[in-house]
């Protein structure tokens, strides 16, 4: 469990370690350092209230279970914010998360889950950009 001084238990108790294929919005090159930064580590952080820094999800990395679910979500987000690519990425990457990479939250009905990384996790090495999202 991370010592981050937030009120809720983080990662949540229902998180599990697992090995699975996953999809993540990234920028054009996988080496881009913004690709696997949790929102808490970004500068400037995309927060609009002090309470945002106290939320466990700010320390997770958003991932999707399938390519189709990721693309669907991206299209929906793009309809809300045309500039969405500037903050969450412009491409889709595919990779494997291993058990020792951390724990994942339960996968929701839209195929989304958060990975709470362990210190051994290095997603840059295990993900490949597969397509541009428009």
């Amino acid at each position, binding site marked *: 469990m991370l010592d981050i001084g937030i009120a809720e238990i983080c990662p949540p108790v229902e998180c599990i370690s697992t090995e699975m294929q996953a999809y993540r919005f990234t920028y054009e090159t996988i080496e881009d350092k913004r690709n696997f930064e*949790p*929102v808490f580590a*970004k*500068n*400037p*952080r*995309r*927060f*609009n*209230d*002090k*309470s*945002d820094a106290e939320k466990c*999800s*700010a320390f*997770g*990395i*958003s991932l999707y279970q399938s390519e189709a679910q990721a693309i669907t*979500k991206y299209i*929906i*987000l*793009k*309809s*809300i*914010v*045309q*500039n*969405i690519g*500037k*903050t*969450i990425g412009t491409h889709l990457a595919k990779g494997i998360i291993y058990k020792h990479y951390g724990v994942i939250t339960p996968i*929701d*009905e*839209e195929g989304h889950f958060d990975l709470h990384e362990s210190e051994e996790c290095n997603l840059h090495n295990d993900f490949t950009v597969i397509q541009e999202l428009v």
Partner: protein
Amino acid sequence: MEDISNISFVSNSFPYIGFKKVSDLINHDGPILSHFSDNNRHLLYLWIDNDLSYNRWLIFEVDKNSLLNYLYKNISLLDLIIDNKQEFLLVTDINESLEFECNNLIKKDSLPSVYLPTENSYFEFKIPNIYTSNDAEREYLHALVNDSISFKIESKSKKYLSAVKVDNLLNVLKNIKQSFTSYVSINFKKDFSSDDFKNLNFDTLLSTIVKDSELLMPNLAYGSFCASITTDYLMSKEFSPIIQNWRKETFIKYRNEVIEIDYDVQILNVLTEKYDEMDRRAIYSPIIEISRETNDYKISITDSSFRKIRKTLKPVSKPIREKLLPKIQSPEIIKSESLFQIIGMAEKTAEELKLNKKSILETKELDYAELTQSTDTIAYKGEELYLKEIFEYKIIYDRGVFIIDYPPLDLHIESQSFDLVKNEFYKNIIELYKRLQKLAIDQLSISESSLKNRIAELVAIPNVID
């Protein structure tokens, strides 16, 4: 980031003080759309841009009903911004330390288009629990009450103190429902045409609209009888935003144009130009009837708490009534024939209900009547469909015309003869049954497939010629 310096007024201070975050509505690696409130007013923060130092947020005020409409997919985020009453929107740059550094007021029309959501920006996310709790239910009812017509019915006689006769109450509600249903149907046909809905059957859509315009009572009180009536436009999700807006506006227009109307010459001219005589009769006659001087009750329109009377429904004067609903000038022979048919219907009803002769004579005077028919067999010229259970439908008599309107099978029949309208209805059902039976599943359109299922639910044994 977009340069907005030449289109904005910069405010030195953030204009919304005392607002607290209620919930993030859209979140992906941090908030994208968030709801703030000071308990009275509501703000949405929409992330729209960033650079190395700032995140830029579009901040705009919304009313709670519109927010719920957005969450329930009745309107898009774009609608929420564009239809907003505010002329200026706030674009704020927030730095790493969460300081609001630039508060730019931008005229809505001048906002760079890249900062606006697209037309498809409906809420395709899980609604946070806070909006689906009992509080949200209360909010929903509150929203319904806000737009409703609240009224009080009081007995003129003091025989039962302020208690209202159930018959009077039912009559008032029935007449308002009848008038409102006519209003919806007539105005939908005026405001839209089949060309507006390329892939939809206009009549089916109209019957769905009418069905979904059912009047609800979100608020009641007793003593005398007080009720608020309205129609839902928040929960129904199957309609497009244009139709949803139309439905909302139509109820408000109905309230102003029918229930709370103050007749004068100018208004009468507008009404007679807008609606033909038959439409006026369908819309206004039921309301004029419940406002008659001879009724032993009176109706007042109140505020939503039923405390303050805003208006009493007064009897409509004869000159106004005659201009609005002129007496039917039909040839005597047709009138007699029509009345004879009504007598037939009335006598049967009277026999069934053991009504006295006086009731029959009153029925004679009516221009409008409804008769429920039931049968276990649809038969026409030797062909028959034996039904699984008793089938009920309604024949409406409206000033010389007998009408059967049966939306489930998409049928609307009119005739000047009671027997003919019935025969034509049965003939149409049998023909529809035969036509749909001949078509293979892959030849059926969606609406035909749905019709076929509905007929299949009715028919037990067919005896028809292929």
